[in-house]
């Protein structure tokens, strides 16, 4: 009898009608984005921490993070909304500005290969900085192989047109921000 009652109650409460939010890709989270970026541009001994660029402390969890309760682990706050987009934008703007300012004097610890890539781009608006090789190298250094080539093409064309005569630090900062705010960089696939 008890078993029967238990089964009835389980069925009664396991309503299949839970109207779930539409399944969408979620943000990778600040820790995962930091790790990926760090492996591409920072030396192993001095990993990059995007958390340093947050506009205030204790905001990391709002950008997507794992939380556990007992044996259950869930990814929280990963669905994009106005608040986390604003925080991502503020955080990545500050990071991008630091990369741009590094044209004059390195503000972050970069590994030598990325430093060489950055140096080429810091000649902007000179022709060598606008070469396919220099642009692609920088794109791959920041984005990795996460995005299709069409994204790279769109990015390249935009900067060759809209930033043709702008100073290097402003351009490099804008390029970095445009890559890191791209859904292929921020979202789980």
């Amino acid at each position, binding site marked *: 009898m008890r078993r029967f009652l238990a089964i009835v109650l389980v069925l009664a409460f396991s309503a299949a009608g*839970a109207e779930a939010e539409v399944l969408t890709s979620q943000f990778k989270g600040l820790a995962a984005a930091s790790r990926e970026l760090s492996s591409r541009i920072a030396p192993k001994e001095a990993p990059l921490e995007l958390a340093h660029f947050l506009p205030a402390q204790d*905001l990391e969890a709002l950008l997507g993070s794992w939380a556990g309760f007992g044996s259950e682990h869930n990814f929280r706050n990963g669905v994009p909304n*106005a608040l986390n987009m604003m925080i991502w934008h503020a955080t990545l703007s500050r990071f991008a500005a630091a990369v741009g300012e590094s044209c004059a004097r390195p503000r972050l610890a970069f590994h030598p290969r990325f430093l060489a890539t950055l140096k080429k781009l810091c000649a902007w608006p000179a022709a060598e900085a606008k070469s396919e090789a220099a642009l692609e190298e920088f794109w791959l250094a920041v984005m990795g192989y996460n995005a299709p080539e069409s994204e790279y093409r769109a990015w390249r064309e935009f900067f060759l047109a809209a930033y043709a005569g702008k100073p290097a630090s402003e351009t490099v900062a804008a390029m970095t921000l445009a890559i890191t705010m791209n859904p292929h960089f921020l979202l789980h696939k």
Partner: protein
Amino acid sequence: MTAPTRRQFLKYAALGGGTLLLPPIGSREAAAVAREPHFFLMIVLNGGADPAYMFDARPLAMTRAGRIQNYLGQEPFPWRGDNGIATLASPLVKPLMPFRDWFSVLNGVYMAPGFDGHLQNMNSLFAGNPFGGDSFIPHLNLAETGRAPASLDAVSPSAPLAVNVDNHSAVASLNPWAAGALAGKLKQLRPVQGGDPLADFMRARIRANGDGPGRFAGGAGRMLAGLDGAPVVHRKLALLTPPRPDRSPELQALDFIAQCFRHAIARSAIYVLPQFFDVHAAEHAKTQPKLFASAIAQIAELIEGLDETPFDAERSMLDVTTVMVASEFGRTMRISGAPIHNTGTNHNALSNSVLLGGKGIRGGLVIGSSDLANERAQASGAHLAMDPALEKTMGTPFDFAEMRPITELPDEFELDDHLTIGSVINTVYALFGVPKEHHRAVGRNLPVAPVLRGLLS
């Protein structure tokens, strides 16, 4: 699916008829609703708080009879509702006495009876399903309620909740100090605005990736919507001021919540009290008087703070906020085999207590009750079938039309004869004008849980 019995048919027809008698909301009334500010504050007692230490206490004679632990060791006192229903209240609730006309007590509330875990019952509280799903909190912020949605569904200036819900993406765990610091930084930063070539380019790429089917496109689509809303959130958050450091954590949180409500940053707030009420071990159970004393003092401070915090020139925060105090479940009276003066308590999803008060709620009522009220009380056949050791109290059957507990002892358990958390949430839904399609069912293949109309002012 089996056909409803004649009894069920008559009961639901009566409830449905009651729904039809509700006045429809016309366009003028809808506009008035839209202008009328209304917010929701959910105070969570985390870990499963024992109602016996608040508004569903038992006489000391029952402790002497070895039936229920009582580590306070003081006789509870009668708490009579304006509707004539009485319960016993622990002396620990005395700090809430000044507010007794402001809130109502709901006892004997069923959570997820077939499930025993914290997570399943917290899911049941928020989503109406032990496996999780859509939480009720964002539903209070839907445009269909007749109010312009706030930027976020809720803020939570306390520890995050352990709950599996699918739609809390706009429920932000933001502590008042972080929000204050963020506001300072945001004043110096330019919001991401259309018209700036770089912002337009980034937007165009997000839009291009958001076209079409699939999860990735869905995520990019949400990024685009987020980017569109970001400047407004930026400007609103930049208006926040940090809390005063000389105030208690509760009042700091309340100050932050009030600012979020005033600036239309959030419709709701979730405040998880710092106490953890999961007292399985006897030595933990013995700390309950202290745990409840501090939690009740904090609840009283929050209510008083709402009363003293202005919403605008005419109204206090208390005038515009509905407040709910709830835990994920109640607790057993004891653990079998342990002496009554040295026992812990386990989870009990068959009887929980909820406090509901504030805007739109009739205060001073006692709704529902639990069984085994004293050492002489008989258990029903339904109770014995589900809890043969009589370790738990169970919500008594409930007459929804009369809003009174039913005293007869049923032989068989039927969930839809009882007050469930679904009815509590549907009452909040009715108060906020949440569309009927979101209202919770009593359970699978059971009708919509009745709204507690008598609780609405």
